[in-house]
């Protein structure tokens, strides 16, 4: 007996001679909220269609609840999808849309009545039961689509970018509602999105995909703070990348050379002397000092402010370092910060607290 509700074993998909998915292995646990994150065209939607049974993998196998689902048509898989366009049946009322799955199973009438009423209550649509979908707002249509899928109590609910067509505020509200719904129902959610913020804030685990490969699987914190490679690091959040060389290596502390300056970094990967590496620093971890605030600048980079972007809660400074590299630093409005106002052309020193950086082997 396995505890995984879904397993991908060496799944590949080739369409018209093009590799869409390459040798994916993934185990999805019961009741987790898993997000597939990747830019458009990375194969997320294809992967969903393989799981839901609309397409078959070219190689490899998909196990649903421990059973090989190969050749099983969509209607026999205990997996339901909330489509990006919702795909609500326009000729049916909200009630009929939600009841569709149960009617297909030929459930008794009073059971259908009861369960549809309960489900509509959960998504707060009991008043709209007799409306047609096209008479509902985007958020309400979204809820119908979810109600229609969860009423069958699927093992896995697939959500294909369900929030992408909603406006910013509604999206925020629906993110919270979806997360609460998932906790309440205990159904495994596989949520597809290209929005990294959405992925981080909603998921138990995030699967970062890039060009048909799984780049990293981990908790939101892991993929953000310990990215497996440069593409994960630069896709999730913003990141400044410094090229560096290892000059001294002792136990946990490694001294590296970045643009002629010596830095001590903490690395989780094993490093050799003279190895080329990338040192990654998030914009919010960079510290910017005005040049006349600083007396000791040994561990700092000199730069000129090129752009100041006011974002309400934060200010982004785009700084050109002396070696022409552009970096982004995010400043919060801290009370203890002497200088909040920067203008274009200010000469600044940039640094970060040792240990807040991430170290990755050099990639070309």
């Amino acid at each position, binding site marked *: 007996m396995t505890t995984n509700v879904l397993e991908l074993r060496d799944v590949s998909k080739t369409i018209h001679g093009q590799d869409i998915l390459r040798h994916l292995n993934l185990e999805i646990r019961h009741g987790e909220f898993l997000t597939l994150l990747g830019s458009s065209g990375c194969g997320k939607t294809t992967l969903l269609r393989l799981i839901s049974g609309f397409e078959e993998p070219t190689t490899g196998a998909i196990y649903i609840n421990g059973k090989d689902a190969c050749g099983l048509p*969509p209607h026999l898989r205990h997996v339901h999808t909330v489509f990006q366009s919702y*795909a609500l049946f*326009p000729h049916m009322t909200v009630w009929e849309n939600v009841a569709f799955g149960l009617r297909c199973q030929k459930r008794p009438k009073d059971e259908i009545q009861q369960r549809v009423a309960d489900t509509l209550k959960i998504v707060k649509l009991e008043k709209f039961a007799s409306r047609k979908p096209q008479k509902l707002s985007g958020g309400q249509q979204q809820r119908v689509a979810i109600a229609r*899928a969860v009423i*069958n109590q699927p093992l896995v609910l697939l959500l294909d970018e369900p929030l992408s067509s909603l406006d910013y505020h509604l999206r925020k509200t629906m993110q919270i509602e979806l997360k609460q719904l998932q906790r309440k129902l205990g159904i495994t959610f596989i949520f597809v999105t290209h929005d990294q913020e959405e992925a981080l804030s909603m998921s138990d685990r995030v699967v970062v995909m890039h060009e048909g490969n799984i780049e990293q699987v981990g908790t939101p914190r892991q993929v953000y703070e310990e990215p497996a490679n440069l593409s994960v690091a630069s896709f999730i959040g913003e990141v400044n990348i410094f090229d560096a060389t290892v000059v001294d290596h002792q136990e946990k502390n490694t001294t590296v050379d970045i643009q002629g300056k010596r830095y001590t970094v903490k690395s989780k990967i094993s490093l050799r002397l003279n190895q080329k590496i990338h040192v990654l620093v998030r914009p919010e971890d960079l510290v910017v000092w005005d040049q006349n605030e600083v007396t000791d600048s040994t561990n700092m980079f000199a730069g000129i402010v090129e752009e100041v972007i006011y974002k309400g809660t934060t200010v982004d400074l785009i700084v050109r370092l002396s070696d022409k590299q552009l970096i982004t630093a995010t400043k919060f409005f801290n009370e203890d910060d002497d200088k909040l106002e920067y203008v274009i052309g200010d000469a600044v020193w940039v640094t970060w607290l040792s240990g807040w950086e991430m170290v990755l082997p050099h990639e070309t």
Partner: protein
Amino acid sequence: MQYGSRGFRAGKWYCPMRHDNKVKIFSLSIIWLWLALFALLPFGLIAVASFLSHDQTNLLSLPLTFQNYTTLRNTIYLTIFEQSFYLAGLCTLICLILGYPFAYFIAQCEKRLKWLLLLLTIIPFWTSSLIRTYSMITLLKAKGVINSILCWLGIIHQPLPILFSDVAVMIGLVYNLLPFMIFPLITNIERLDHRLVDAARDLGANRLTTFSKIILPLTLPGILSGCILVFLPAMTIFYIPDLLGGSKAMLLGNLIQNQFLVAQNWPLGSAISIVFMLVLVCLLLIYWRSTRGKAKRTLA
């Protein structure tokens, strides 16, 4: 998207007329004039004629009478009405059964293949329908192509009497009217949002349920307009029963034609036309009510 298409269509038709006003009035009045002259006026004449009498010397004469309508209560005419409805209905059904899968297949095809198939469907109709019906005689007659092939294959030993039977009439009607079923269906099926079919399958509907609960209801407008486009001509194309059915098959079209041209009984012919038209208006009203009613239907 399927839903919302009504609003979009409404939006497309809505165009603010400012300097186009004269063009609009001109083109509309031409159409109205045309319809008034060649549709409304003849209809009025027929309506009046249906209440007149006729004698040996005059095609139409006074006094006004209901005689023509009471004559229609005769079982001969009722049988012809019944027979016509039966044949036209059967023809519509066969066209639907043949046309629907065909239209569904074409609608799913990729663009270039679709155009090729549509072209192949249309090309025969560049030839006059009358000529094609004549050529059908050569196919169906006792020593015709079909019987010869069947004999040669040894399937039958003596020719089948296909020509001058209801079967021949039906073959002719279906052949001539099939495109009128196919085209509205294709345009309707093309508009069908395939994601809805996926959604139904995903929610646990097998192919049969998906077809009956999703595809069929969503393509119903196409089915109904196709049926109307086939049913109406099927009742009135008089030359097909004439040529292929011999004298045996008498449909409404033939009856009206006979009354006008053979029996020279214009008032009776007019009365049949009027009754026929009333029946069709009733059918259209039912169709209209059924499509309108569906929009208003509430929770069962």
